[in-house]
Structure formats: structure tokens, C-alpha cells
């Protein structure tokens, strides 16, 4: 490995952080659903991919400008989340967790295949008002797309934190996640809470999609790739912690960029998986531990 110049270093770091933020955002969707229902939605990445394609369709076929595209995409995806919850998740309440896990794996395959049939398998480009010349600071050139990703992620996380911590609904959600029956007894509409949690997580996926679309080319398989990495992020951060998901995502984004640079682009992606296996061997509870054994 050659010695890295400062400029390259900063650039790799920023690219890593911005990709990491994306993984973190998708991971946030995982964690949110997991916290509320202890279900794992493996199709989160593919839901994000759908968000990206919907945004792309709205922009290129319907010729909408950027702001309406953003609002419509988030709205459509939230509805989509509601639909998913009603049709396939609600019947599965009370089933063992691994059944839901496999169900969402199946869902991911279906979503990917349908997207491929509708939009084809070639890569699509999505432009935004901020897809302009990069910002040059000395040796470092920074893309606005990357800066927007980081900024939006921070804002979204803050909003989410406030929402979960201080609003009635957020607290109801936490209650429902700990004991559904007890929550129902004290008057929390558990079914609605679960439904809204899904809405929220697909809406977050839509935001992630709007951020990823200008950063990378979009194709049906992108959701799976990003989804797996987001999952790794959630695990590295210790499933069940929102902050952990984000930190995990950023760690992975950075490792991926630097390893990719060191091996001239060859092993960046693989390093993520190696990192995960190492992590699970050394510290399986994640960086921020929340899981403990069952109470008897």
C-alpha cells in the first residue's frame, strides 16, 4: 500500500462517512422495526431500492421537479409500508421470529424481481439540484451529494430521537416493544403502533433512497447489497440501539473505503463481511450492548 496523501485520506474519509450514513439510515429502519416488534425486516434494503425507483420514475417519466419528487416519494413509500404491514406482517404476529425473518427474505426476492421486470436491470442515473461541481478545499474535493447525505442523516436522527423519547407515540412504541399484552391492557393500540412503525421505517427507507440515488447508479440489486451492509451495521452497533446503528454504519462505510483503496478496489465489499465475522467472534453483543438473555 502506498502512503496516502492527506487529500486522498480526507476524501476517502468523507466518502466513507457518507456511504456509512446511508447504511446507517437503512439500519435505522431495521432497528426501528426490531425495537417495536422484535421482527427483523430483511427486505429493508429492497424497500429502499423501490423508493429510489419511484423517485426516478417521478422525476424522469412524470418530469416533476426535485421537491415534489421528495415529498411524493416519502408519502408513497409510507403508504407502501402500511400496505406491507396489513397484508403480510399482521398475519405473522405471534409467529416465531425466524419465520418472519425468512418471510422478509422472500419478500426481498419478490420486490427485487418485480423491480427488475418493471424498470429493467440496467443502471439508472438520478440528478438533483445539488448535483453540481464539487466543493474544492485545498487538495480535497468534496461532492455536495455526500455532504447532503451526512447533513440529512444527522437531522433525521435528531428528529427521530426526539420523537421516540418525548412524544406519546414514541413512548407507546417502546412499551409495545417490551410487552405487547401489557401494553394492550394499559390502552395502547398495539396494532396501530406496529402499523405506524412500519410506515415510519419505510419512510426512512425512502429518505435513504433519495439520498442514495444521486450518489450511486440505481439498479434492482442495489437494495440487497446496501441492505446486507446495513444489517452488518446494525449488528456492529448492537441491534436495538438507534445511535449504534448509525455509528455501526459509519464504521463500515469507512472500513470499506479504506480497504477498497488499499487493495485497489478489490476487497472493499468483502472486508465488510470479514469485519462482521470478526465482530461476532470478539464482541457478539455489538459495540453498544442491549441484548441480554431471557428472563425466567
Amino acid at each position, binding site marked *: 500500500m502506498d502512503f496516502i496523501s492527506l487529500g486522498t485520506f480526507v476524501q476517502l474519509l468523507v466518502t466513507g462517512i457518507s456511504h456509512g450514513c446511508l447504511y446507517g439510515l437503512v439500519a435505522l429502519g431495521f432497528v426501528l422495526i426490531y425495537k417495536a*416488534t*422484535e421482527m*427483523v425486516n*430483511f427486505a429493508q434494503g429492497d424497500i429502499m431500492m423501490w423508493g429510489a425507483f419511484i423517485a426516478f420514475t417521478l422525476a424522469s417519466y412524470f418530469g416533476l421537479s426535485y421537491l415534489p419528487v421528495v415529498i411524493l416519494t416519502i408519502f408513497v413509500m409510507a403508504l407502501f409500508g402500511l400496505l406491507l404491514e396489513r397484508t*403480510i406482517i399482521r*398475519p*405473522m*404476529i*405471534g*409467529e416465531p*421470529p*425466524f*419465520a418472519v*425473518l*425468512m*418471510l422478509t*427474505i*422472500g*419478500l*426481498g*426476492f*419478490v420486490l*427485487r*424481481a*418485480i423491480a*427488475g*421486470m418493471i424498470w429493467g*436491470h440496467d443502471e439508472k442515473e438520478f440528478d438533483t439540484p445539488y448535483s453540481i461541481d464539487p466543493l474544492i478545499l485545498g487538495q480535497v474535493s468534496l461532492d455536495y451529494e455526500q455532504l447532503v447525505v451526512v447533513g440529512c442523516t444527522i437531522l433525521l436522527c435528531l428528529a427521530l430521537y426526539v420523537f421516540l423519547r418525548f412524544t406519546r407515540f414514541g413512548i407507546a412504541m*417502546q412499551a409495545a*416493544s*417490551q*410487552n*405487547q*399484552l401489557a401494553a394492550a391492557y394499559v390502552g395502547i393500540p398495539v396494532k396501530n403502533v406496529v402499523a405506524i412503525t412500519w410506515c415510519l421505517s419505510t419512510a426512512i427507507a425512502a429518505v435513504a433512497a433519495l439520498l442514495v440515488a444521486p450518489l450511486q447508479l440505481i439498479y434492482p440489486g442495489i437494495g440487497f447489497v446496501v441492505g*446486507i451492509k446495513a*444489517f*452488518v451495521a446494525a*449488528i456492529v452497533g448492537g*441491534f*436495538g440501539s438507534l445511535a449504534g446503528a448509525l455509528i455501526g454504519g459509519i464504521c463500515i462505510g469507512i472500513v470499506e473505503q479504506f480497504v477498497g483503496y488499499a487493495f485497489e478496489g*478489490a*476487497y472493499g*465489499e*468483502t472486508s*465488510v*463481511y*470479514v469485519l*462482521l*465475522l470478526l465482530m*461476532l*467472534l470478539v464482541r*457478539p*453483543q455489538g459495540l453498544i450492548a*442491549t*441484548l*441480554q*438473555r*431471557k*428472563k*425466567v
Partner: protein
Amino acid sequence: MRFVLKTNYTQDINLFLHNGQRFWYGLLIAALIVAPFFLENFYVGELTYLFIWVIAGAGLMLLIGYTGLVSMGHAAFMAIGAYAHAVLFKLGVPFLPSLLMAALISGLLGAIIGVAALRMTGIYLAVATISFAFIIEKVISAWRPVTGGHRGFIVPEPVMFGLDFGSDLAFYFLCLVVVIAVMLVVMNLLRSPTGRAMVAVRDSEISAQAMGVNLVQTKTLAFTLSAAFTGLAGALYSHKIGMLFPENFTIILSIKLLMLVVVGGLGSVHGIVFGAVFISILPQLIAILRDFLPTWLAQRRGLEPLVFGAILMFFLMFEPLGLYGRWVKIRSYFTQFPLYRKSTFKRQKSYLRTERVH
């Protein structure tokens, strides 16, 4: 309806409950022995594939259906088995030792994953196994001097004791012998303390420990065995497909194996066979489906994963006991007619109470 009069404890231990079962299974094996002499080569080949799926399925069923550990990367173990056997055999290791060594190598790697999996719950394990599969895929495509990478690896013709097993017929019998052996081993384990320990871990880890089951040992053993059987299937598979590419062992194969155990019926030995039959005829079913679909849809890429995913979802939502569960229901409908009650098989739902401590 048949009532079995039990007069001896050994009846519960024996593989077959009564002579009727012994007769039917005997007939099945006899039919499998004479079948290739009456069938066209194509169907002999298809049956051989079926046997290979049964072997791989047995491995995955032990892990998912009996120990409750979900692996989504079992294609990796098939790949390891296939490449290990092909490479060793080409290097001049005799056929049978090479086959066993392939299973052993796969099993050892499985043990490593098993150790990593010790403190993981379902989701962690699923992701860890997927990651493992990706790493293996990458290693196979990058390790060109040994595996040939994306240019492929030509598997030599199977030769054992100087006899050529390359013909469809000979290879069919080889696979038949292996499949029977594997099924016997699986059934033996399930009726002995090892199998009970696995089931105990599946149903309640806490209780299993309180009953003296060593979690570390049991989970590692389950992973090792599972990987070894799947590796063995991979080794046989390598001869069947003749040329190995990393693309043979992608996530699609893992999902196919997962589908095998889910569709067959989790936690049943019959389920392995039912599931294997299902995924063997699935390509034909998809081909038939294509005829019925409008051309613009039928010619699209991605019909196969769509069908895979949809089937997986369908079974998990509507028939979680799989084809075997459906078979049991149909059978009891007829044997108990007109007393059959639908609620006999009603599942009990439980409300979520978290295992997390906040």
C-alpha cells in the same frame, strides 16, 4: 384408522412403528433400485439430482428444523464440498477418501462458523452465514490457481476402485447408497441423546442447559454435521454439473436450500424428501408457468427468483408446517372422517414479551 398396540418400549425406539411402514419403505427402496432400468436417462439424472438435494436438505434440516439455527449461506458449504472434492480428486486422491475429506473440510469450516454462532440468536446467525457465503464466493473467484476462478474448474470423471462411475446409471447408484446412509445417520441421531439435545436447544436454550445440555457442544456439533452433509452433497453435485463456477453457488442456491426445508416442513425427516422433490420439479413448474404467462412477462429475467420468493412467503404464511404438515392433515382427514376437526392443527399464537433488558 390404525391403532398401534404397543407392548414393548423398543417399539418407540425402532425406526418403523409397525410392519406396514416397514413394507412401504422397503417397497420404495426396491422401486428406486429397479427404476433406472426402466427410465430414460434424463429421468435417471433428475433422480440423481433429487438424491443430492435430499443429502443437502438433511444437513440444513438438522440445523434449522432440529436445532433452530437459521443458516442463509449453506450454498457456501456446498461450494466448499464441491471444490474441495474436485481439487483433491484431480490431485490424485482416491474417490472415496476425497469425498469424505470434502465433507470433513466443509464440516470443519462449519464448526468455525458454529463457534462464531454460539452467542448469536436467529437474526445474527442469518447475517453471519450470508456474510460467510459472500466471503467464500469471493475466495473461490479470487483463488484462481486452485479453483480456476470465473474461468471454471473441470471436474474429472468419477473413478472408484478402477471402475468408471461416470455413467448416469453407476452414479445414480452411488448417490442412492449415500442418500440412504445419510438418512439413516440422521434418523439414528434424532432418536438418541444427541438429537434430543438439539431439539432441546431449539425449543428452550435455558431449559436445555438446566437439563445438562452443553450448548457450546450441541450447537457446534449441529453446525459441523450440517456443513459436512451439505459439503458431501456438494461433492456429488460437482460430478453432476461437470464444471464448477463461483456462479453455481450464489445466494440463489442458499435460498433454494432454505426453501427446501421450509416447503418440506421444518422439523420432520419426511419434510427433507418432500422439499427435495419440490425443488427438483420446480424448474419444470416454472417452465409450465411461462407457457401460461403473456410473452412480455414470461421472457423477462427474474421470474425464477420471483417464484422462489413468493413460494417461501406463501408457505411461511399459510402452511408453516410445510408439505409434510399438509400431508399429515390430509391423512388425518381421511382416517378420522367424519370426525376431523380443523382446530386439531390450529397453531397457538403467543404475544411478544421481550427478552431484552432495558
